[in-house]
Every structure is written in structure tokens, then in C-alpha cells.
């Protein structure tokens, strides 16, 4: 570690924090805290993007960082916050898998992700290559979170966290995608969030709750 430049150390730190936040999200039952963790995740992401932009001298990454800040740190958590208050869905009542077991699976996933990233990282020329494994791990953990949660809101937060992981992968492995794509992705995420917001209201209108157990009627009996 010692011989790494400061920027890399910062990025690595960010990566570690991201991973930590992901685990925190995995174990967190309070929905509002989850939103805060999500905002934190976005902030760390923003920080790491700025660092990458500064280190690599890629000016368009500043734009990305700004979009991230606006969207993932401010706008989306705000929308979520409002939604949760409006829908009165503060608590995740129960998980499909208890927390220790989830953590254990998460740990295995992290090992798996690191193993997966190993051959790719060796090819990467960027300063941030070692963080690719963490990016994959974040994606996987978000996936796990979506699987284990029963509330529609938490599932969406998991979905957004996964998006964060992807974004982190994009910046850490390749200094970001072309701008058009970045913007397109951001637009999609925003629109998705809006649509989901509408959905929450409709679901609650129909079922009086956001519990996903209400959404198990369509099946092969």
C-alpha cells in the first residue's frame, strides 16, 4: 500500500467504504436508514469519481460526478424519503433469510467476486484496477439484498445500489463510459425511479401495503 500514490489510496479507501456500506445495507432493517446509507454510497461514489477524474485528467468524469451527486446523493434519496413518509413504510418487518446467514452468503459472494475480478484486474491499465472486484461485490450484494427483502421500497433501493455498483465498476475499470451512454443511463435511472414512485402509490392503493407478499398471485397453481 505504501508505494501507491495518494489518489489510489483514496480510491481504495472509497472502495472499502462502498463495500462496508453494502454490507450495512444488507443488514439494515430500518428503511429510512437504508435510504441514508444509499445516499452515503452515492457520496462515496462521487468522491471516488472526482478522484479518478483528477488523477487521470479526464474532464468528462467531473460531469459524471456531478450527475452522481445530483441524482444519487440528493434527488433520489429525497424522492425516496418523501415516498417512505407518504407511504408510511418505515420498517422492513422480516427478512427472508436471517441477518447472520445473509452476511455469510455475502462474504462468500465477496470472495467469489474477487476471484472473478482477478484475471481482469491484471489486464487493467487504470490506477483503480484493484477496485473492480469490489465493484462486482457491490453488485452481487445488492442483488442479494433484492432477493432477501420483502418490501417493494427496499427492493428498489437494492436496485439503485446495484446501479451504483455498476457505475463504480465503470469508473474504476475504464474511467467511465462515453458521455452519451452515461447520460442515457442516468436518464433511464431517473425515469425508472419516477415510474417506481408512481407504482408505489398504485400498489398501496390496491393492496394497502407495500409488502411484496401481496404480489404473489400470478403463478402456476
Amino acid at each position, binding site marked *: 500500500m505504501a508505494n501507491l500514490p495518494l489518489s489510489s489510496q483514496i480510491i481504495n479507501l472509497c472502495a472499502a467504504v462502498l463495500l462496508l456500506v453494502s454490507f450495512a445495507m444488507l443488514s439494515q432493517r430500518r428503511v429510512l436508514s437504508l435510504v441514508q446509507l444509499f445516499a452515503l454510497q452515492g457520496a462515496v461514489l462521487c468522491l471516488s469519481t472526482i478522484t479518478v477524474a483528477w488523477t487521470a485528467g479526464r474532464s468528462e468524469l467531473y460531469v459524471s460526478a456531478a450527475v452522481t451527486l445530483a441524482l444519487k446523493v440528493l434527488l433520489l434519496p429525497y424522492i425516496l424519503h418523501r415516498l417512505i413518509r407518504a407511504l408510511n413504510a418505515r420498517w422492513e418487518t422480516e427478512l427472508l433469510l436471517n441477518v447472520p446467514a445473509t452476511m455469510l452468503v455475502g462474504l462468500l459472494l465477496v470472495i467469489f467476486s474477487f476471484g*472473478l475480478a482477478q*484475471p*481482469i484486474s491484471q*489486464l*487493467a*491499465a487504470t490506477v483503480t484496477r484493484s477496485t473492480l472486484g469490489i465493484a*462486482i461485490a457491490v*453488485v452481487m450484494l445488492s*442483488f442479494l439484498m*433484492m432477493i432477501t427483502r420483502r418490501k*417493494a421500497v427496499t*427492493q428498489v433501493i437494492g*436496485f439503485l445500489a*446495484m*446501479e451504483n455498483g*455498476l457505475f463504480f*465498476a*465503470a469508473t474504476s*475499470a*475504464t*474511467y467511465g*463510459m*462515453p*458521455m*452519451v*451512454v452515461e447520460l*442515457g*443511463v442516468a*436518464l*433511464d435511472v431517473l*425515469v*425508472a425511479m419516477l*415510474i*417506481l414512485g408512481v*407504482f408505489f402509490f*398504485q*400498489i398501496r392503493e*390496491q*393492496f394497502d401495503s407495500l409488502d411484496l407478499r*401481496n*404480489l*404473489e*398471485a*400470478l403463478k*402456476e*397453481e
Partner: protein
Amino acid sequence: MELLILLCIPLLGAVLLALVGERDWAPEANSLMSFATFAAGAALTVRVIGSGPMLAFHEQFFVDPFNVFLVALTAFVGFTTSLFSRPYMRVEQHHGRLNRSQLRLYHSMYQLFTFTMLLALLTNNMGILWVAMEGATLTTVLLVSLYRTPNGLEAAWKYFILCGVGIAQALFGTILLYFAAEKVLGAEGTTALLWTHLNQVKGELEPVVLSLAFVFLLVGYGTKVGLVPLHNWLPDAHAEGPTPVSAVLSGLLLNVALYAVVRCKVLVEGSLHNGMAGRLMMAFGLTSVVVAAFFLWRQKDIKRLFAYSSIEHMGIVTFAFGMGGPVANFAALLHMTVHSLTKSAIFFAVGHAAQKAGTQMIEQIHGLLKLSPTVGWGLMLGSLAILGLPPFGVFASEFLILTTAMRDHPWAAPILLLALGVAFAAIFSRVQSMVFGEPSLSRLPHAPALLPVFAHLLLVLALGLFIPPYLAGWYRLAAKLIG
């Protein structure tokens, strides 16, 4: 130029219909827009056939025989579906299942969906392809949940989450692709995600990265194709949305998603040279065919039934693309075409039948032939066509796929045939009980639009007996492109 018009018309239409989509003449406007799109698509097709592949707008758009054929198909099915949806949506409104604002949403999203489909097909940028696919998901989510019923919401939610997660994997795959390409093409330009460039240098791309990328891309776009075991959203979304949406989902969206997979496969195969991508696709395809065939046995809802049939056929096409080679690719393209035409025709007929019966439950629909012979025959012939009975075109493509399978992978042919047999028994027994027997239906306030049904079936029939040389040549070119 045609390209720009082609993309602008549906976008304009979406905006326009978002404003006036609740008017009485909105369905006609929708059809008109779709027709204009179709005309532009036809013009583009003619041009590409005449002067070969083209690039446009800083290489951001790209048209070759492979995608132009899908563009033409998409525009055509989009147009005929809009024709079908005119009386259909009017009847829905009449029955009070839809209000005016929902109708406006429907029309606007219909056009937007067409736009995203065309964008996904025409773009040269793998990133934009992803954006368009996600856009298509978003528009169709709104379409699926149009009725705001509990089941509709559930279906839309599942569709959204599953496809959203799936497509996130595809984004990761795209990132990895970019990661690999960047080393060869350089990060400075924006060329590193352009398919034409990637295709030129595919031999130099890093195999390890590409194989990982392909896994993510396959799982991602494969979710949208409806490959088993990623298919779970598909039957729900098909069954709960309005029937025109089911028709375009089956007829177009699945094709476009598969198109994305195939584009990726071309790159990956070019880099890996070990047939891994093909084998994966074959495995997914075969699983889908077999599992879907058995799923068909448990269906009580007519639209779900045909949704599973779509999974089955997408499995067949995926399998064929997985096998690769000129004949299999040719057959797969042909199968895509005839499946789109046939399945949308079936959904048209099913839509009318379900409206007449006031239910989608198979057990409660009888004697279509007696009360409405044209709808009955449309459904019957469409089902027979989709089941691969000659002289319909589906048989032609299945014949080619099966014979190729016998040659290249003899073990797969009996499995495919068995699944086809199981599917035959399942679908036919149900359709027969609906079409035949004592009638249980009522009349509708608007005359059904049967022109699209029989136009599609006639095309499919013609393709079974005679494939015009220029069409065959075009398929061959496309098949060669895919390799």
C-alpha cells in the same frame, strides 16, 4: 435521411399522442403514425437493399441486412398491431376498463415503445443499445400496468424488477466490453463502443474479459428474451397487459432483445474462437424449449399459454443462433420473422376472442367458430402455424433448424422434437376446445379488425411455400454477417 425520419416519426408521435391521445380520433392517429413509420422503414429497407450497409451520424447509426430486416419487421408488425388496437381499445373503453387518460398514456407509450425498438435496432453504439433496451422496458412496464388491476400491477412490478436487474447485468457486460475494447481502440474517441469498430477488431479483444462480458450480456438481454430460467416475468406481463401490448412484446421486444444477444455473440465468438457463446446459447435455447413445452400443459389463461409458446419459440431461435453457420442462422432469421407474424396474429385473434367471451380463461371460451368464424379460423390457423404444421412458414424454419441440429448436434434433435410434440398436444388441445364446440360468446360493439390477422397468416403461409429470391438473398446476407 430515411433513418432520421424513421426515428423521428415515432418520437414525434409519442409527443403528439401524449397531448391528444385521449381524443376520439387518436387510434387513427396512432395507426397513421405507425403507417408512416412503416413507410419510412420500407424506404430505408429499399435503400439498404439497393446500396448495401450504411453508417450515419458519426457512425452512431448503422444499418446492415441483419438489422434492416428486423426494422422492416418491427415497423410492419407495429403498424398492423396499431390497426388491431383501434377496435380493441375502443371496446376496452366501452367496457369501462380504460379511461381517457389511460388511453392517452397507451397511445403515447405505444409510439415511444416503437421508437425505443427502432433505436435499439439501428444504433451502432452498444451503450445506446442498452439505453434503448432499458427504455423499451420502461415504456412497456407502463403499458403492462395500464389497467391498474392488482394482477396488472403485480405483473408490471415483476417485469420491471426482473428486467431491470437483468438489464443491469447487461450494463455490466457492456462495461466489460468497453473495458476490453478500450485497450484496442483507445479510450479517447467514442469509437470503443461502436459495434462496427468492435467487429473489425474482435480478434484482438481480450478473450477472458469477453467471456465474462458475454455471461453478463447473455443473462441480461436473455432475461428480456425470456430464456428459461430468466423468463418468469414474461407470462405475467403478456397475460395482464392489453392484448396489443402482448402482441408487440412477443412479436417485437423479444426479437430485439435477441438481436442484442446475437450482436454480442458475434463479437465474443470472434474473440474466443472456442464456441463458448454458441454453446451457452444452445443450452439456454434448449432448456427454454423443453421447459416451456411442459409449462404449456398447466395453462388456464389463453394469453399465458401463448406467452409460454413465445418462450418456446425464442428458445428455438436462440438454439439456432447458437448453432451458427449459414443454414442455422438463415433458419433462425426466418423463424424470427414467421414467429413474429404468427404470434402477433394469434394475439390479435385471442384478443378479440377474449373480448367476446369477457374472459381470458380457456375453459370459459367455446365455439368461436360458430359465432365468429373469422376469429375462430384465425386462431385455429394461427395456432396450427405456430405449432409448426406445414404449409406454414414456421415449419420451413423448424425443418431447417432441426435438420441442421441433426447434423451438428444429433443429440439435440430428438429433445427438440419431443418438446415440440409436447407443446403441440398442449396448445392444440386448448385451442381446439376454444374454437370448436358450442358457442359461449357475445357480440361486440366494434367490428374486430381481422385484416391484420389474415394478412400475417397469409404472409406466413406464403413463406412456407415460397421464399422470394430477394428475401432469401437478404436472409443469406444477414446470416453471413452473423457468421
